[in-house]
């Protein structure tokens, strides 16, 4: 841990910064954790989908008769059987509504008493299709006359609704005729791009591509739903957001939100991919069948019909002034978000293009294009690593060409606190300077010019802005001297263990005395999605406030007992006492017992906390990659990897390092292994782990993690949200290392065959 001056010393008895296992770690690694698919439910119907073998077709006939003959099969549902009453986008179309728009799209759902019977039934459902021309290649699908990915549009979902505003943009004027597949054409500008570019002394230009990437969560999409007697529905699901799911379901089925009860199960990985994707289908089936229903995708169904990260294609131009300042950035981006346009993934990618840098002027021309693939979803720092791959590659190329120090070139162009970014928003305080100091002095970086032939070291940085939201929590004091924190956020990354430490530190007790309960939508305080690097930053502040409020009540009570001002009291060893006077200590247990006593006029001790940080707390990150390239085969071997990240204040180093390592692994996957491939007909060629390459542990190097602490102003104890920045710089760092060792690659993943081709030409 590199602690900066601002990261002031913490008390010797502080529980912050200590390595602690998350409460669910043991049950997860020993198979004891209950996941959604594990829960037994009386009268449950199992579901298996009938999926389209074609990317684009019209359904002309569905014959269910043979399937209904299978013993145990109860229903075979098609779109027309579903009680859809509202909503928009993919959520309102959980089964294909006449027009199939991607291969693997569910066309019918078989419900049976056992999953095996449902599978047998699904095999016997006969579907006839009229084939339609598919739109597959994103660049070709942009052009007028291209086959349309959707002939009939049901409804469009509001763009970017989940991720908030992304700055100034104007709709591109129709100077160029484009296909109706282009559902979004916008230009984001700052300054005077043409003049700025003309004034630049050095201009670098390159086209970069990143394919569709699946989040690769270990637990495929799964949910259960039961109709309730009051006309509502109860849902038990693998989700990142119970309240968000509630609002989607309430909208699609026109049920009052109060009658939609959503409980989150243990999350078997999500990374942005589990946001109300499968719940509309399972609720529709449960309401249609009037019985509890479970839908659990297989791995291949999830690959074909999930919501992976969209493909990304950018023609990027970077102009530098004579003194190395970034003068102009010009990007022409084509983002293929598949057959649905939910989630705003195209405009999110456009917003990430300028990275954490200051430019005199920028112009990002965005085209969001619809093709016959599943709809795109969020994946850890949406657009972040893809944009960083392009921009950090070009910056590296500029540094090499101009003989500039890559660290200093970045440092002089990074936005300073309070500076206005290209998006028009003010730059919140960040620790990129300290991160760059750490990189510059790292032995691996200093050795970069002393390597054997065919080895290289690459650097890249990234800083995801994250988001803010209002969050709330309560803190109840318990008779055993412990406390219970109640909130409504799904634990995606170990955040409950973080809340435990925050509450313990605020109260002054041991973390073991803190229980953290994430409740369902019936009883939890209002909560947002787990995502956007928000939970530690926003909920953390609320939990701290709730614990401080309970502490104040406790101290007030003790002050009355001791006849000493509350301000002169402290909490030590499970007791409240005058500062430095153990002899007069009153155990928390006896205060709590008294607080719940009869007829003594005492109030129960329960604190409430809420908050909405007034600004972002971006987490600066950098990655160093050391590679060897086998020139004979093109194979890239990763020898070393160093992740450096400003976490604000380290609450639990084990969890911070986990985020940094996981982000690095996913970035390395993007760099070297991953990519969804489709045939010219729109058939998914990488629909299982036999064909889609994940960054498995044996292919990853030992990683070094260096935590930097530059406290945020508003996070609990200075903490920042760190989940997203962790993935941003890695792919670019590996690409820059490959460039230093052998050749510059513009297309991900950098497979051996591609590197070999590049070396040959």
């Amino acid at each position, binding site marked *: 841990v590199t602690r900066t001056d601002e990261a002031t010393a913490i008390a010797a008895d502080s529980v912050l910064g200590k390595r602690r296992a998350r409460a669910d770690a043991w049950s997860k690694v020993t198979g004891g954790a209950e996941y959604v698919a594990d829960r037994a439910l009386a009268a449950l119907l199992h579901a298996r989908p009938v999926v389209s073998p074609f990317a684009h077709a019209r359904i002309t006939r569905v014959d269910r008769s043979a399937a209904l003959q299978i013993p145990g099969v109860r229903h075979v549902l098609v779109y027309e059987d579903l009680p859809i009453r509202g909503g928009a986008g993919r959520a309102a179309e959980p089964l294909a509504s006449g027009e199939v728009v991607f291969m693997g799209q569910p066309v019918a759902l078989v419900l049976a008493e056992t999953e095996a019977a449902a599978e047998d039934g699904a095999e016997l459902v006969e579907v006839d299709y009229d084939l339609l021309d598919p739109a597959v290649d994103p660049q070709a699908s942009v052009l007028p006359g291209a086959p349309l990915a959707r002939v009939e549009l049901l409804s469009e979902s509001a763009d970017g609704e989940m991720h908030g505003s992304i700055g100034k943009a104007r709709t591109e004027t129709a100077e160029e005729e484009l296909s109706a597949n282009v559902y979004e054409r916008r230009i984001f500008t700052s300054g005077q791009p043409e003049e700025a570019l003309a004034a630049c002394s050095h201009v670098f230009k390159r086209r970069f591509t990143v394919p569709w990437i699946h989040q690769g969560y270990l637990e495929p999409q799964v949910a259960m739903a039961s109709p309730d007697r009051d006309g509502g529905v109860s849902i038990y699901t693998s989700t990142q957001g119970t309240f968000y799911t509630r609002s989607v379901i309430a909208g699609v089925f026109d049920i009052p939100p109060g009658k939609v009860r959503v409980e989150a199960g243990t999350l078997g990985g999500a990374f942005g991919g589990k946001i109300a994707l499968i719940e509309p289908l399972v609720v529709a089936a449960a309401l249609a069948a009037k019985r509890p229903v479970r839908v659990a995708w297989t791995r291949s169904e999830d690959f074909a019909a999930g919501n992976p990260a969209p493909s990304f294609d950018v023609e990027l131009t970077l102009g530098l002034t004579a003194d190395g300042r970034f003068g102009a950035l010009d990007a022409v981006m084509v983002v293929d978000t598949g057959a649905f346009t939910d989630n705003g993934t195209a405009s999110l990618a456009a917003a990430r293009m300028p990275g954490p840098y200051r430019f005199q002027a920028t112009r990002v021309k965005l085209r969001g294009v619809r093709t016959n693939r599943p709809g795109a979803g969020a994946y850890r720092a949406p657009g972040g690593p893809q944009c960083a791959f392009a921009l950090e590659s070009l910056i590296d190329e500029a540094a090499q060409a101009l003989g500039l120090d890559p660290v200093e070139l970045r440092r002089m162009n990074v936005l300073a606190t309070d500076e206005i970014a290209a998006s028009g928003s003010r730059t919140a305080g960040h620790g990129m300077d300290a991160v760059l100091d750490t990189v510059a002095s790292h032995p691996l970086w200093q050795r970069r010019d002393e390597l054997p032939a065919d080895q290289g070291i690459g650097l890249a940085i990234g800083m995801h802005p994250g988001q803010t939201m209002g969050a709330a929590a309560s803190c109840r004091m318990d008779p055993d001297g412990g406390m219970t924190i109640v909130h409504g956020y799904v634990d995606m990354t170990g955040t409950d263990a973080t809340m435990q430490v925050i509450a313990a530190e605020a109260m002054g007790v041991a973390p073991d005395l803190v229980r953290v309960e994430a409740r369902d939508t019936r009883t939890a305080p209002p909560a947002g999605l787990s995502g956007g690097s928000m939970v530690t930053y926003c909920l953390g502040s609320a939990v701290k406030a709730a614990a401080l409020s309970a502490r104040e009540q406790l101290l007030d009570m003790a002050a009355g007992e001791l006849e000493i001002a509350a301000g002169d009291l402290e909490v030590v060893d499970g007791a409240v006492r005058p500062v430095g006077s153990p002899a007069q200590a009153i155990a928390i247990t006896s205060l709590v017992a008294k607080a719940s006593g009869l007829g003594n006029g005492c109030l129960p001790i329960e604190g409430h906390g809420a908050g909405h940080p007034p600004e972002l707390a971006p987490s600066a990150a950098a990655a160093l990659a050391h590679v060897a390239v086998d020139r004979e085969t093109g*194979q890239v071997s990763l020898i070393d990897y160093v992740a450096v990240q400003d976490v604000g204040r380290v609450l639990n180093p084990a969890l911070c390092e986990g985020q940094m390592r996981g982000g690095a692994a996913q970035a390395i996957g993007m760099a070297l*292994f991953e990519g969804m491939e489709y045939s010219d007909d729109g058939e998914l060629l990488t629909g299982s782990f*036999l*064909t889609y*390459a994940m960054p498995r542990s044996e*292919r990853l190097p030992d990683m070094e993690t260096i935590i930097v602490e530059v406290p945020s102003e508003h996070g609990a104890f200075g903490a920042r949200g760190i989940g997203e920045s962790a993935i941003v710089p890695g792919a670019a760092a590996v690409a820059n290392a490959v460039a230093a060792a052998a050749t510059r690659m513009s297309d991900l993943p950098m497979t*051996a*065959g591609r590197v070999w081709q590049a070396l040959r030409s």
Partner: protein
Amino acid sequence: VIPASCNYERPATIGDAFAALADPDAKVLAGGQSLVPMMKLRLARPSTLVDVCGIVGAHVEQIGGALHVGAGVTYDELLRSGAVVPTALAEAARSVGDLQIRNAGTIGGALAHADPACDIAAPMLSLDATLRLQSPSGERLVAIDEFFTGPYTTVLDAQELVMEAILPAPGDHAAGSAYVSFEDLASGYPIVGVAVCVEAQDGRVARCGAAVTGVGPSPTRVPALEAALLGQRDAELPAAIDGVELLAGEHADYHRHLLRVAANRAFACAADRAQGRAT
């Protein structure tokens, strides 16, 4: 991922196994690391699974210099048997799948499955292995060279079982072998796998076997490569390797190139081992 319904039998004797296999839709189960995934995708729908793991050989033993490997031996058992296993075979066995697969998948199962990218077939071919097969009509020995007939097909009759593989005793010369493969990043199957075994005399290759896997319809010996290696001193191969049927594909050029690289590296490594140079 739910297989169609089927029966499971674990016969106690080979006679019971033959009887169960009289049903033309019955399939032999010998570890299940390929068959079961195919059943889960319903690409295979046997009426009955006849589990032969307890019947076919479970031995790894040296008999008169030859190495006998029972068909029921798992990859992991082979690697930990303590017997002197030719290096190429051990390298191939080690490169199969992951630990769970090596714990369950068997040598006989892998050979009988006849995957075009079967790792262990290449060293078996390069080492001149013989397979002992047994059927209701008796026993026969088949050179592995004549065993594979195409993708997932072999000379095995419907009720015939692979009982063991026999690797002949090495000759009098110093011998060395190596298996070099380039794997598909997702599946781990070899895109190109080359096994080379050489016997060196006076610093030259006096005898050699060379075989490839992953590149054609079946793992196969490469006589042209063997001919090129005979008499060689240094590890420099001819520019092209002829006589190997490559599955046509988008990356055929690259695969042909990898084939040459793998052959070079396998030969260099095997030659070093034969001459006692550490690798």
